[in-house]
């Protein structure tokens, strides 16, 4: 069965995309700060938040797909095309990330403080004599090797090439398998998936450090990569779960039965707990040891007047709501429980990314208005549009996967 992307769903995503475009264009002028030091920072910061959030969802889909192959999981075979569909956004997300990073490199915005080249030299030449550099930052200068232009861009290109390359190959092999049944091809995907996970294990962490953690340049946390990774994973499962509920009511994915939905509910519950665990592990160790260079991240979030309440609320919602609502078996199988939790914690995980970026870039100049809402909806529309459009390009259920029947027969 093929999915047809048309009618109201298509129109709705297009309306959302137009809303996002309007927000993007008008917002560029309305969000400008009179202070030239800040300027368009709010516009760029929100572009980064949205670009990264949705990019990471499609990246998590790529990881989850590889995980299913590497572990030879059968249950997810009927859902496999949906994971592939989410990669449709991957090039768009990558483009947004490259635009934001390149704009930073060319001094168009100052989201990344370390991109300022004048921070690294202890002494500068003033009127022919060497003087101490007033802008010199010893901590950032200590990271100069890691943040050197060549290494940073080399890494960024390596991440994007790896992610896009593997997504392209997985998709190609998956479609090949539809045409010609081949066990060799299946084992090839199995081996390549394991290889991808090796790359992803390193790159997901360093990517999070480079693109998000480096905003608070003085701060560091080795756990940050896993924290970002668990956040993207849970957002992806939420998106899959909600779309699957919708697609099933439209008559698609009839092979996805109650047990598959239950499994998706379990994943949602489990990964929400993984995220909470990592969030708290990172926070508690920093809070307990109370070392000045480590606490800066939380001082500017948890203990600030503007970001404190949203930060605590974000954590409590993302942890307590899925925990208490989804712990029961029947709740995981019931859309009346799944949907409200899904919408709430999807927004919660967006707020998580928002609160990673904004306090470190806008400080006390932040504002949340129609621009932010519009941009979020615009990216959501683009993401859904790309996903469903990719979904319509291949058979919904893979045709010759060796474990297809086992997946269809899944129960419990």
């Amino acid at each position, binding site marked *: 069965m093929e999915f047809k992307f048309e009618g109201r769903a298509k129109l709705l995503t297009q309306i959302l995309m137009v809303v996002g475009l309007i927000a993007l264009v008008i917002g560029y002028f309305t969000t400008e700060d009179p202070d030239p030091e800040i300027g368009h920072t709010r516009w760029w910061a929100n572009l980064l938040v949205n670009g990264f959030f949705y990019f990471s969802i499609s990246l998590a889909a790529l990881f989850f797909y590889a995980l299913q192959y590497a572990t030879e999981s059968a249950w997810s075979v009927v859902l496999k095309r949906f994971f592939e569909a989410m990669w449709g956004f991957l090039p768009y997300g990558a483009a947004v990330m490259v635009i934001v990073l390149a704009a930073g490199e060319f001094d168009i915005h100052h989201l990344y403080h370390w991109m300022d080249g004048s921070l690294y030299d202890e002494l500068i030449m003033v009127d022919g004599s060497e003087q101490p550099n007033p802008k010199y930052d010893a901590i950032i200068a200590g990271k100069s090797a890691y943040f050197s232009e060549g290494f940073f861009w080399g890494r960024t290109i390596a991440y994007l090439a790896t992610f896009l390359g593997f997504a392209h190959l997985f998709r190609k092999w998956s479609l090949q398998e539809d045409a010609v049944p081949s066990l060799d091809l299946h084992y090839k995907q199995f081996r390549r998936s394991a290889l991808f996970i090796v790359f992803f294990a390193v790159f997901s962490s360093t990517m999070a450090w480079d693109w998000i953690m480096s905003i608070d340049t003085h701060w560091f946390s080795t756990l940050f990569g896993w924290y970002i990774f668990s956040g993207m994973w849970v957002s992806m499962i939420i998106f899959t779960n909600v779309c699957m509920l919708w697609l099933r009511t439209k008559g698609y994915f009839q092979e996805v039965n109650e047990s598959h939905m239950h499994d998706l509910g379990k994943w949602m519950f489990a990964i929400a707990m993984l995220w909470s665990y990592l969030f708290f592990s990172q926070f*508690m160790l920093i809070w307990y040891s*109370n070392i000045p260079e480590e606490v800066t991240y939380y001082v500017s979030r948890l203990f600030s007047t503007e970001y404190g309440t949203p930060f605590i609320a974000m954590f409590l919602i993302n942890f307590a709501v899925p925990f208490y609502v989804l712990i029961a078996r029947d709740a995981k199988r019931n859309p009346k429980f799944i949907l409200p939790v899904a919408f709430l914690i999807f927004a919660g995980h967006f707020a998580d990314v928002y609160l990673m970026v904004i306090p470190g870039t806008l400080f006390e100049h932040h504002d949340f208005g129609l621009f932010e809402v519009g941009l979020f909806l615009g990216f959501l529309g683009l993401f859904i549009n790309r996903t469903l459009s990719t979904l319509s390009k291949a058979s919904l259920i893979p045709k010759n996967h060796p474990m297809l029947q086992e997946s269809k027969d899944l129960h419990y």
Partner: protein
Amino acid sequence: MNKVFHVMYDDDDKLMEAARELVGKGVHVNEVYSPFPIHGIDPIIGVKRTRLAIASFMYAMTGMSLAILGMWYFMISDWPMNIGGKPSFSLFENIPSFIPVTFEFSVLCGAHGMAITYLLRNGTLPGMPASNPDPRTTDDKFVMEITTSTNSLNAKKLEAAIKKTALLELSIKDVK
């Protein structure tokens, strides 16, 4: 006189098939004894969903409350502690440092409570007398227990229905 039938099968699929057949005829199956869990037998013989998970949740919540109460008493109330320069002497302000212990104690109480409840409810705590009718059900045989007292059919009709299934052995005993 009530009778109890112990029907033995040498394969779990045969037992499932037989159970489906008998239940289709309106027979109530009391119990199935098997060396391992038979996937999917519960809905056939009408075993209700276990409430063990609910019990476990309650044990964990009890553990959580006890842990918080205990730490409040030890660390805040009885002998206020100053650890790592955090002498705030308030449960709320020190709660992050109590979370790991609270979590572990909740898991401990949940897991132990669940295991003990499970063994107690099944009558399989160490030292409890075995209740399976035939020792071979701990090896490679499967026994289905049907009693006349819980069935509307009489003994003869039950026996006739049972004998139509792919059974290995049938033992009929009188019980009071």
